[in-house]
């Protein structure tokens, strides 16, 4: 039997642009655990490249600690912005929570 590492969930919502840069940075913090990380952006209605850059750094930090990370994105617009930035494949992106959790558990969604 293996221990189930606890899930780290970071939730952001609303319009995230350069004006929210410090608040987003404060929210994007890893806990002290070693479990997978879910960034819940399901209620984000707008995000600019400032936030995408912060998400990239957070992903790098998580992966450097060997932690699997996924983004839950509800807005088609946000998904398009990742494509426009050339980063559609830079994150594990899901539009429903169950698929994201399956991925984070190490199984194919």
């Amino acid at each position: 039997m293996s221990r189930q590492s606890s899930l780290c969930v970071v939730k952001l919502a609303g319009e995230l642009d350069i004006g929210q840069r410090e608040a987003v940075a404060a929210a994007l913090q890893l806990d002290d655990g070693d479990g997978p990380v879910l960034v819940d952006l399901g209620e984000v209605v707008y995000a600019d490249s400032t936030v995408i850059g912060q998400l990239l750094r957070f992903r790098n930090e998580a992966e450097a600690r060997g932690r699997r990370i996924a983004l839950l994105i509800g807005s088609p617009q946000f998904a398009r912005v990742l494509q426009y930035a050339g980063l559609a494949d830079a994150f594990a992106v899901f539009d429903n929570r169950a698929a994201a959790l399956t991925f984070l558990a190490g199984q194919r969604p």
Partner: protein
Amino acid sequence: MTAGAELRLARTADVHAPRPIRNALAAFLAALDLEQVVREDILVAVGEALANSVEHAYLDDPGTVELHARAEDATTLMIDVLDRGHFHDRELTPGRGLGLRIVRAIARKVHVDTDGGTRISMIFDAAVPPG
């Protein structure tokens, strides 16, 4: 879309400026009866230009950021974002090169003029698909 419709805005160039400018532009675009996806993408591109301006134009001396939007004809929307500060291409800064990449992916044409400030001129296709 109504040719000749125009929106001109100016605000103090701080990090809180982009949101109200985007909101005003959103209302302007809604009045032009553009498709939702087109409106959203234009707001994203303009938002990136605004962010670029307020982040780097006036590092020492606060100035203004301006937006000029004009429906050139039934299918073409021209939007300029301008300041009189110092241009700083975020593409030259590691990890900060995403903004103009996004603008170029959305706009039909982009021109950046850095003479005496920065003017990012964007031309968007604004046609509503048939049907």
